[in-house]
């Protein structure tokens, strides 16, 4: 890690910490009429989804189009439950399986996680890397979903990242092609959008707390609307070289209905031009 990248990350963390300190994000106890604690949320949203009839696109699938943001209750910082630490607020975690809400690391992987979780400046997101799956939905910014024929497309505000998800269940790219944002291939299972991610380069973290992955990672994301303005998001992560078993997390996605809203540009890497405006005095 070179000095300037560390500095950028530190700035990001400081800004985030300041934001948290000054303007606590309101934390209503429900989302789409369901409690937000992950297990209770999952059970409630699943039940509601069975009785919910979504509006349809021309293709006959649920219409997910519009602006969304995650109701992530701070799990952008740590997917596991935790008491919080420097720049990391307390969270109740988002894992629903295993039941203890902990990532089922193999011993060597857990040791590495414990080591790197103290080095949040190494978080790839602090280097303006696309955040991969499922983390991209965990960021503190929103995104737009559009549904061209046979596709679902996510346009994220954060780092102008995107996902193009073909829903024709096509084959994945050759395994030798590894990418930061992976290769999403989708299909509709009834009213649930199922997205199968492979070809991820494994350099990502799941959060700011050092929870990490390898290039063998396989992610399956599931999106199910359970009210007109709420989506049940579930992701299952599998990697036999990292974890003793597959594990699953969930959280709520909420529609942003602000009139006239559209996403402005989040040019992350270009912010390095501002380094020249900082002096050693600014860092004290």
């Amino acid at each position, binding site marked *: 890690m*070179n*000095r*300037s*990248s560390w*500095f*950028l990350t530190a700035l990001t963390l400081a800004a985030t910490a300041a934001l948290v300190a000054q303007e606590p994000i309101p934390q209503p106890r429900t989302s789409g009429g369901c409690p937000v604690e992950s297990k209770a949320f999952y059970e409630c949203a699943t039940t509601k989804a069975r009785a919910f009839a979504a509006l349809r696109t*021309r293709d006959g699938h649920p219409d997910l*189009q519009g602006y969304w943001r995650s109701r992530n209750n701070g799990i952008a910082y740590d997917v596991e439950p935790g008491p919080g630490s420097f720049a990391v607020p307390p969270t109740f975690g988002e894992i629903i399986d295993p039941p203890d809400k902990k990532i089922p690391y193999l011993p060597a992987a857990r040791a590495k996680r414990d080591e790197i979780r103290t080095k949040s400046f190494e978080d790839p997101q602090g*280097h*303006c*890397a*696309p955040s991969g799956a499922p983390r991209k939905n965990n960021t503190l910014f929103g995104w*737009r979903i*559009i*549904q*061209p*024929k046979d*596709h679902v*497309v996510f*346009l994220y505000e954060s*780092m*102008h*990242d*995107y996902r*193009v998800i*073909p829903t024709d269940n*096509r084959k994945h*790219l050759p395994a030798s*092609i590894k*990418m*930061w*944002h992976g*290769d999403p291939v989708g299909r509709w299972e009834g009213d649930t959008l199922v997205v199968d991610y492979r070809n991820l380069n494994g350099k990502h973290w799941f959060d700011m707390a050092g929870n990490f992955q390898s290039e063998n990672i396989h992610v399956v994301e599931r999106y199910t609307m359970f009210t007109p303005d709420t989506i049940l998001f579930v992701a299952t992560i599998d990697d036999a070289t990292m974890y003793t078993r597959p594990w699953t997390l969930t959280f709520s996605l909420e529609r942003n209905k602000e009139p*006239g809203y*559209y*996403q*402005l*540009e989040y*040019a992350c*890497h*270009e912010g*390095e031009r501002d*380094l*020249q405006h*900082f*002096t*050693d005095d600014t860092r004290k």
Partner: protein
Amino acid sequence: MRPLLIGVTAIMAAAVVATLTAQQAAPRYRPPRLANGKPDFQGVWQVRNTANWNVQAHGGSYKTPAGYGVVVDPPDGSIPYRADALATREKNWASRDTADPLGKCYLAGVPRTMYLPYPLQILQTETEVAILSEYVHTWRWIPLTPLDRIPGYESWMGDPRGRWDGDTLVIETLGHNDQTWFDHAGNFHSDVLKVTERLTRIADDVITYEATMEDAKTFTRPWTIRLSLYRHRDMDRILENECYLYAEEAGKPIRGEHPK
């Protein structure tokens, strides 16, 4: 017999002429269409020219492939700079190896993002168009329905609005910053730039792309480029080009050192 033969011949000749005329009168390509009848541009596209290096006609030089140039107006193919702006362009040209924003992996801006030597994917619904680039995972979101602009908004990729002019997609983009270049040769603009792009699918595999630049701080008059985007028949999705991350991984970080 003879008058009849002449008559038949005349009818056949007339038919041939009519067929030829019909072909000449209706050579128009009929693009695939969305359900609302608007042309469908969806697919993976890329230019096959060297406009990224220099939008004006140029011979080859170190790390620069030669090219015909894409400026079609003014007719002489040269960008109509104001005198002071031309001096800036000359300065940019001299320092292009280090000063080209793309050398730092910055966002390419409009219109340069459309003629980078990398693929882009167009996706479309009846109310919006998305143009996604491999290069530093860029998206342009173009609403086709009215949407108020945010006054004073300034960005690398601009703030676009789209509409249909017959079968041509017209995109007007304002809200540019003054940091992007049109090419590696140092051709540049100010933050009052307005770009009007016109995309017309003229064949299954070809989009004719035009962009007109207006910027009274930099140019004496509007000027226009025209080029072709070609469809990749063998690519059903774009990959990624994470310029600054690759540099970091290679131990050659783009980001500058913190000043002492």
